């Protein structure tokens, strides 16, 4: 396999409802990513597009629908999709395209326009549940994540305050992100006093629904160095799915995230993740998910993530900053674009270009992770300023 680097990145604002269409948002993110490394659409070897359920747009063949905004016509083009895990799954596909030697460069763009689905995009999620054994009970994502959160809290004896601290940190971090939808200075008390939507989930522990797009440009070794003097190398990739029989497994721990992380770390030669990784962008659509995923990513032991958060270890100034971007809780959650926003953050942080959000250093190595489907997919990407050995 050839070594592959990220050489450019770009993203739109994340907003509750955008004037721009899905195609226009996709174009804007792609254009910014191309401009950031001085490339033109004509230069691209291939294009990978990531977008989540067609039901949001009410448009089938969404990959084809968004082809032109993605700069993909007349080129080898693919759309890939694993629900919320898509934003990190798509750059993994881009990596494979380039690492294989088939292409020298790849534009990877992820987009979501959720607001088209009325009256609330949440309604579209009914169609992810089993049509015979689950849908007649009327479930939605808030329910099942509340079930997972309660299981996680019950097994480890975690308190609501522990979870609320993640909302405070991430929404605070997002105040420094120029694309953020919900940056806000909050207290733990304000989070705990917010409306209970599906106990133990409170309103301020949930990311918003959003419209937005984000993109990166990947290039092979030899090409990357000509496009930028600061390539950020992809050191490891991993992905894994657990069984869709989600009521037959223990939700307190995301084993599939651990498996995906082990795959990526093995490739990157990482033996002690908590020491060898400088910062992380774990997937945080709900506040507890950041903690759950830090554990799955082996950045701490099972049940230990709340203590790291309370001790400030995961703050931007701490030893292991998590979601310095502001995460999905703060920047917003246009499903596939949200995961890609995390990959963009790794790129900007490792190059020392994250502005007010910059982690001192700049950090040498970061991990981004996304998650989705029926609480069953983990997608992991490890990047750093050092070129991987193999």
């Amino acid at each position, binding site marked *: 396999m050839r070594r592959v680097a990220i050489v450019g990145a770009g993203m739109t604002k994340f*907003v509750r409802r*955008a004037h721009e269409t899905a195609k226009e948002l996709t174009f804007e993110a792609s254009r910014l990513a191309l401009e950031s490394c001085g490339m033109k659409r004509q230069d691209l070897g291939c294009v990978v597009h990531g977008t989540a359920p067609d039901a949001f747009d009410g448009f089938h063949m969404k990959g084809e629908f968004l082809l032109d905004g993605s700069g993909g016509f007349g080129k080898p083009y693919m759309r890939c999709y694993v629900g919320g895990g898509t934003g990190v799954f798509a750059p993994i596909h881009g990596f494979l395209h380039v690492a294989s030697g088939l292409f020298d460069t790849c534009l990877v763009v992820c987009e979501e326009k959720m607001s088209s689905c009325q009256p609330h995009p949440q*309604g579209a999620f009914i169609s992810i549940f089993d049509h015979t054994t689950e849908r007649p009970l009327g479930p939605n994502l808030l329910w099942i994540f509340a079930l997972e959160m309660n299981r996680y809290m019950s097994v480890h004896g975690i308190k609501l305050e522990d979870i609320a601290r993640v909302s405070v940190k991430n929404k605070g971090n997002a105040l420094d992100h120029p694309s953020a939808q919900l940056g806000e200075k909050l207290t733990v008390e304000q989070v705990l006093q917010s409306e209970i939507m599906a106990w133990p989930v409170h309103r301020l522990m949930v990311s918003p629904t959003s419209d937005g797009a984000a993109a990166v440009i990947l290039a092979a070794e030899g090409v990357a160095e000509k496009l930028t003097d600061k390539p950020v190398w992809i050191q490891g990739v991993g992905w894994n799915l657990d069984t869709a029989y989600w009521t037959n497994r223990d939700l307190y721990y995301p084993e599939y995230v651990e498996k995906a992380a082990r795959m990526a770390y093995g490739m990157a030669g990482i033996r002690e993740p908590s020491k060898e990784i400088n910062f992380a962008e774990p997937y945080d659509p709900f506040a507890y998910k950041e903690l759950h995923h830090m554990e799955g990513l082996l950045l701490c032991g099972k049940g230990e993530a709340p203590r790291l958060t309370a001790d400030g270890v995961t703050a931007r100034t701490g030893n292991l900053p998590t979601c310095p971007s502001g995460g999905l809780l703060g920047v917003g959650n246009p499903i596939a674009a949200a995961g890609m926003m995390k990959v963009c953050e790794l790129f900007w942080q490792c190059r020392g270009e994250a502005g007010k959000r910059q982690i001192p250093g700049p950090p040498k190595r970061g991990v981004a992770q996304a998650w989705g489907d029926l609480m069953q997919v983990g997608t992991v990407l490890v990047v750093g300023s050092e070129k991987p050995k193999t």
Partner: protein
Amino acid sequence: MSQPSQTPGTALRAEDFSSGRVITVRDRLFTRYAWDAGVAIGRYLAGLRRGVILGSRCPKCDRTVVPVRSFCERCFSALVDEVPLTDRGTVNTFSVTYVTWDMKKLEKPLIPAVIEIEGASKGCGILHLLDPDLDPKTVKVGMRVRAVWKGTRSREGAITDIRHFARLEEGAGA
């Protein structure tokens, strides 16, 4: 080149629509489906109609799973025989939810739960609802529950043939 401080993307506000500045096209998609329950879930639903919760036994993995399935996803062998389980269980996890599937508010909350079914292997359960008249404050992980069935005549071979799961009073139904 750093991330630009001004990024594209225009947030819309309510007045953008009321003033007619922004044009929106509204539509409704109608699609109808008839989902065949299939071989395994067909048996499961027939069991529910009789008032029995059925699982599948995988002799190779020494595991009894619920609901019934045609194959073991772990060892990938075909599963032929379904086994009757009890209609009692233990709350593995639960929520007290004030929103419906399409985000309408509920005054009286629903209590969805994962219920581990007695007779299945540990950790194997189903999604269902707990008795809506339970005081949510008294619901605990580990609480024992039993299925409350619809009357025989109104059962139709559906997951909703179980109305909900109610608290199993100690000493009863064991």
